[in-house]
C-alpha cells in the first residue's frame, strides 16, 4: 500500500543489511525497543516494517484490553526512524522533529501489532515519513502517521553507528 519511492539507482548505507538482518541492530542498540520486544520484520530502500508482540504490560484501558495509544506512537516512531536510516546514503544521527498519529479505530485486543513506515523524501536536513499500523492486513490500519525527522542533528551518531565507533 505504501510503495517505496526511493530511486533504485541510489546507494544506501544499510543496503548490505536490508531484509531481515537488521533485527539484532535495532534490538541491541535501542533499549526501549528491546524492553517492548519490538522486532524488525522487513527493511528495504526507504522503508521498514516492525512488529510489537502483544503483552499485558502494554494495555491502556484494562476494561477493554486495548493497547495504550502511546505504545503505537513508540512503534511508529521506531519504524519511521528506521525507514529514514534505510533511506540514507551514509549513516547519520536521526532525531524526530514531529509526529502526528491518527487513531483510525481501536487496535484489536490481544493481537500482535505491526507498523510500516516509508521515508518518501529526503532533503539535506529533513526526512519525511508516512507510516501506518495494523494487526494483520496493511490495508486495514488502525493508525496512520506523518512524521518529519532531522538528519545529522547531533554528533553523537545513530544507535547503529554507535557500536562501530566504539570498537
Amino acid at each position, binding site marked *: 500500500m505504501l510503495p517505496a519511492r526511493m530511486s533504485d539507482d541510489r546507494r544506501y548505507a544499510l543496503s548490505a543489511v536490508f531484509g531481515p538482518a537488521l533485527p539484532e541492530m535495532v534490538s541491541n542498540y535501542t533499549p526501549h525497543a528491546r524492553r517492548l520486544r519490538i522486532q524488525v520484520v522487513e527493511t528495504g530502500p526507504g522503508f521498514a516494517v516492525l512488529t510489537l508482540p502483544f503483552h499485558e504490560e502494554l494495555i*491502556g484501558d484494562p476494561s477493554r484490553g486495548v493497547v*495504550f495509544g*502511546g505504545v503505537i506512537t513508540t512503534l511508529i516512531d521506531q519504524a519511521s526512524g528506521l525507514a529514514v536510516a534505510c533511506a540514507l546514503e551514509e549513516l547519520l*544521527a536521526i*532525531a524526530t*522533529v514531529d*509526529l502526528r498519529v491518527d487513531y483510525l479505530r481501536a487496535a484489536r485486543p490481544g493481537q500482535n501489532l505491526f507498523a510500516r513506515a516509508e521515508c518518501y523524501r529526503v532533503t539535506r536536513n529533513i526526512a519525511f515519513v508516512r507510516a501506518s499500523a495494523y494487526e494483520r492486513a496493511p490495508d486495514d490500519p488502525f493508525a496512520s502517521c506523518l512524521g518529519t525527522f532531522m538528519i545529522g542533528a*547531533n554528533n553523537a551518531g545513530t*544507535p547503529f553507528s*554507535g557500536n562501530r565507533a566504539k570498537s
Partner: protein
Amino acid sequence: MSRLVDAIPYARLLGVRIEPTAIGWDCVLPFSEDIIGNPRLPAIHGGVIGSFLELTALLHLIDESGSTERVPKPINFSIDYLRSAGPHDTRARAQIFKLGRRVAVVHVTAWQDDEQKPVAAGNGKFLL
C-alpha cells in the same frame, strides 16, 4: 489520580507517577535505562516521550470529567520534539484548551530541569 495511573499497565511499565503542585498536579516520568532510545547521547525514546504526553493529556481529561466510566478516546495526537530528552526525570503538565460536548482539545508540555526549556509539546484531540 495515582490510583488511576496504577490501574493502567502501560503507565506502570513507564513508572509514571503523579506529583501535586501549587496549581494542580504534574505527571512525572522517572528516568530509567529501559526508556532510552539512543544510548549514545543518551536520550529518551521519542515514542516514550510521546506516550508520556498522551498519558498526561488523558489523565487530565479524566480528572476534569471526574469519571472513569467513559474513558475519552484519542482521535489524534501530534508531538513536537523541541530538545533531546536527556537521562533525567521528565515532567509534563496538560491544559485543556477546549472541552466541547463531543471533542476535547488538550495541550501538553514536557520539560526536565527547566520548565522554560520544554523537551516536547503535544496536542491531542479526544472523543468524549
